[in-house]
């Protein structure tokens, strides 16, 4: 039986979010396609410490990233999920500064998981509709399009994410046919 699915999007109400100073948009584009991901390596970056500053579970800039505990949860749910790590250090290397670890997650894009009646504009999805037959035995979907990318999650995944007190994310129910 197919569960309900949800679209994961950025919570734009979150401000003062940690920002990497050295991740370029060319290497870490907003739309992470397979060829870009293959060129990535585990890396180190810095951030400028500000007060206040939040380190949410989800970052959406320069590309989609998951905080370490959240990435581990995603991998438990879908072991084929791959990732490249980004270790953050405070730019002054202060000993008491947080050193969060984030991951750029990756699954091969599956545009054909979108139902033909999905509404799209300028290469972006307006209202995703999923094909039910593509949803069995999985908990995450990654879809890259000309104008954007989507991450979608099953009810099991969303419930686990929310129970963890996830910050930086909104969820929208998605129809499947």
């Amino acid at each position, binding site marked *: 039986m197919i569960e309900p699915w949800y679209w994961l999007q950025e919570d734009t109400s979150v401000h003062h979010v940690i920002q990497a100073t050295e991740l370029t948009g060319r290497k870490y584009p907003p739309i992470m396609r397979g060829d870009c991901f293959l060129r990535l390596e585990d890396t180190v970056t810095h951030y400028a410490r500000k007060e206040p500053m939040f380190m949410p579970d989800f970052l959406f800039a320069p590309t989609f990233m998951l905080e370490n505990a959240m990435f581990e949860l995603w991998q438990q749910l879908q072991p084929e999920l791959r990732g490249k790590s980004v270790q953050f250090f405070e730019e002054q290397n202060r000993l008491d500064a947080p050193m969060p670890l984030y991951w750029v997650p990756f699954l091969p894009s599956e545009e054909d998981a979108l139902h033909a009646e999905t509404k799209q504009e300028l290469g972006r999805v307006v209202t995703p509709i999923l094909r039910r037959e593509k949803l069995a035995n999985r908990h995450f979907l990654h879809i890259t399009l000309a104008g954007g990318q989507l991450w979608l999650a099953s009810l099991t995944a*969303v419930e686990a994410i929310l129970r963890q007190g996830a910050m930086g994310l909104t969820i929208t129910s998605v129809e499947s046919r």
Partner: protein
Amino acid sequence: MFSSLEEYKKESYDDSERQMLQAMNQWLGDSEAKCRQKWQAAMTDILHQAAAVQQQAKQVGKSLPCRYLTCSLLYSSIYLEKPQVRVEFFGDEAWYSHDPWLTASIDVSELLVHWTPFVQQALAKEGWIARYYSAAAIQRLFPQTIEKVVYLLTRHWHYWARELLLQGKLAELERPENFELSLGQYRGWQEPLYRTVPVQDIFLHGAKSLVAVDFRRCIYRGREIRQEDLTEARFWECRWETVQLEQVNLTDALFVGCRFYHVTFTDCYLAAVRFEDCQFYSCTFTGCDANPESKALPLVRLYPGARWQQCQWKKCVFDRCDLQWARFSDDWQDEVTLRECQFEQAGFIQVEQEAEDD
């Protein structure tokens, strides 16, 4: 003025949470609450649907037993402001937690009566130094509160499930011996509300547990039962004659249509016990503890008071019993002698009206 989540939680959030949970607990305990009737009716419909599906499967030669019936309060539904409980029917261990043969939903949006004002209060900016305020950060505290709401629901739905059982609503569902109805998190922890376990003999069970066992039409005559744990046990039309029960744990036990003749209950635990349509003739309760707030009970559980409903009494005695929060019906007072018992918050259920809850 708050400048950190830790400070805010300690000085404001925890208090608001406690008040909300207390109010919700009281509201859930109100037997007149429309939500209770609505949710029980919804569950009855779902059980009926499931029985129909089982019948249809049988007609084509398939078997669809229900070993697990899970109810899950969806965190996502609370975030989307349409709270619902997802009900799922599983055939056996192999199917459990990933492949239900039927799913349904119960709209529990009445929870918003308490949840929404709590959220509004929690997300209020007053008291914060402006640049440190983040609604998203405060929302990180919500899952732990929702978990407590789920726990509260499990405690109340445990007794609502018992009502469904007494009304025969579970009877039409084909269930194997180890059936379990539970409530909890979706694909997370589930608390059993009602379960059936293999039949045991109350005297010859060896080391096997008697918890939640059903005893049907048993006759106990001239025996002693000492220090047994009969928590959540259910006795249906059993007959007890000259039996002595001593230090027996009958917490949350259910007795329906039983007959007690010259039975003594000594130092027994009776919190949340329910006697329905039972007869007591020359029985004595001595030093029994029916207080749902007794220190002898697990701290992590909530219990209602003991209840004697539609029972008949003749020459019975309660001696030095703690009957706080207990409920009695019928002409109890004429036929029962009370000696040095505690009665705070105890009361009477009016005959032919729905019982009051604690």
